[in-house]
């Protein structure tokens, strides 16, 4: 799960976008296996499992352990994928670095 929006107005939750290794969808962002990151299988970043993650538990070594800061250019690619998600008015939103 990558934090894609810190949600400063929300004291309880940030928004996460999941990386999945099964059930890829055409709109997902491909994410190959990488030995330098905790990506042991080929996978995809998907909008399907966007959801809230509790800020209070973030970093808890058991319940929500911190894994890694995504290195560039992957970090920007993942955040841009989130920002480019289809939106209510069917427009493509702004892109750019987070």
């Amino acid at each position: 799960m990558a934090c894609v929006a810190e949600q400063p107005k929300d004291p309880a939750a940030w928004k996460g976008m999941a990386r999945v290794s099964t059930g890829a969808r055409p709109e997902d962002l491909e994410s190959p296996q990488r030995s330098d990151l905790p990506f042991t299988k080929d996978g995809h970043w998907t909008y399907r499992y966007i959801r809230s993650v509790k800020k209070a538990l973030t970093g808890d070594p058991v319940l929500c352990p911190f894994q890694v800061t995504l290195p560039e250019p992957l970090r920007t690619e993942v955040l841009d994928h989130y920002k480019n998600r289809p939106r209510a008015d069917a427009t493509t939103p702004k892109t750019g670095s987070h």
Partner: protein
Amino acid sequence: MTAYSLTEAPAGVANPEVWTRGVPGKVAAGDLWLLSWDGVGAGLGAISARMPGYVLVWPVTLPSEPSHSPALMLETSPLGVPVSIWPTRETGVGDAVLHRRLGHLLAPRLMVAIEDALDEDENPPLPFAHPASDPAQQRVQDEEMIDRWEAICLTQWPAPTATDPRLDREAASSHGLTPTRLSELLKVDASEAVALQLGEVSLAPGQAETIAADLGVAVTDLLTPTRATATAVLLDPAWKDHVLRLAAHRDISEASARDLVATEFALAARSSNSPADLLRAAFARLLGE
């Protein structure tokens, strides 16, 4: 929050008939939906984006439920009461969870403006709910809400890994496949090869690829599309009531009822009728009607 009833509007809802009957319409951004799984109302959501097979939604809560900042207040809704919307808690939700459309809630342009403002840490074009008077109670309510919406997000049908590939008997024959060749290729006995050739049993992982490579055709040229068709049609919320009726009739879970219908459809699908007609017939058979 306690679970919503699917047949009775929550106390205080001014337009109970909207809750119980719904407002017909396609799945579209800006609309308010009642979500359910296994016959239980799981939540209310405003669709923020329509995707193939799922939606992104903003949780919505009623005046009878806890509300506090960062929820935004919306004075009018199809239910005839003000509602709280929670854009910071946007969640991906599978189509199978969509139960009933309750009407139009938010203009898509307004939703985008809200999203942009929150992304930039600016004030959105709707007012925030008041902060909770009891921070400890707010924390408990927030945790409960986040847990509940995580469960909604992770409710998935069909299962992402669920596959039931079967050979299309006519396609297999037309490409020159025989049970004898199948037996050699897959190292299975003659009776299993016949069952595979006739599409009576599922192929194991990798078998379709082996056969396709031997015949020099694409995997999709060999497989029956019927189960996939049934799955796609069943995701339409128009079938939700049928699914729940079957689940209650057989005393099985909603996922099991959906699997049962998809299998029944696949076994009997060779017909010129439309997928909707075939699905209706599958439900009738399973319900003994």
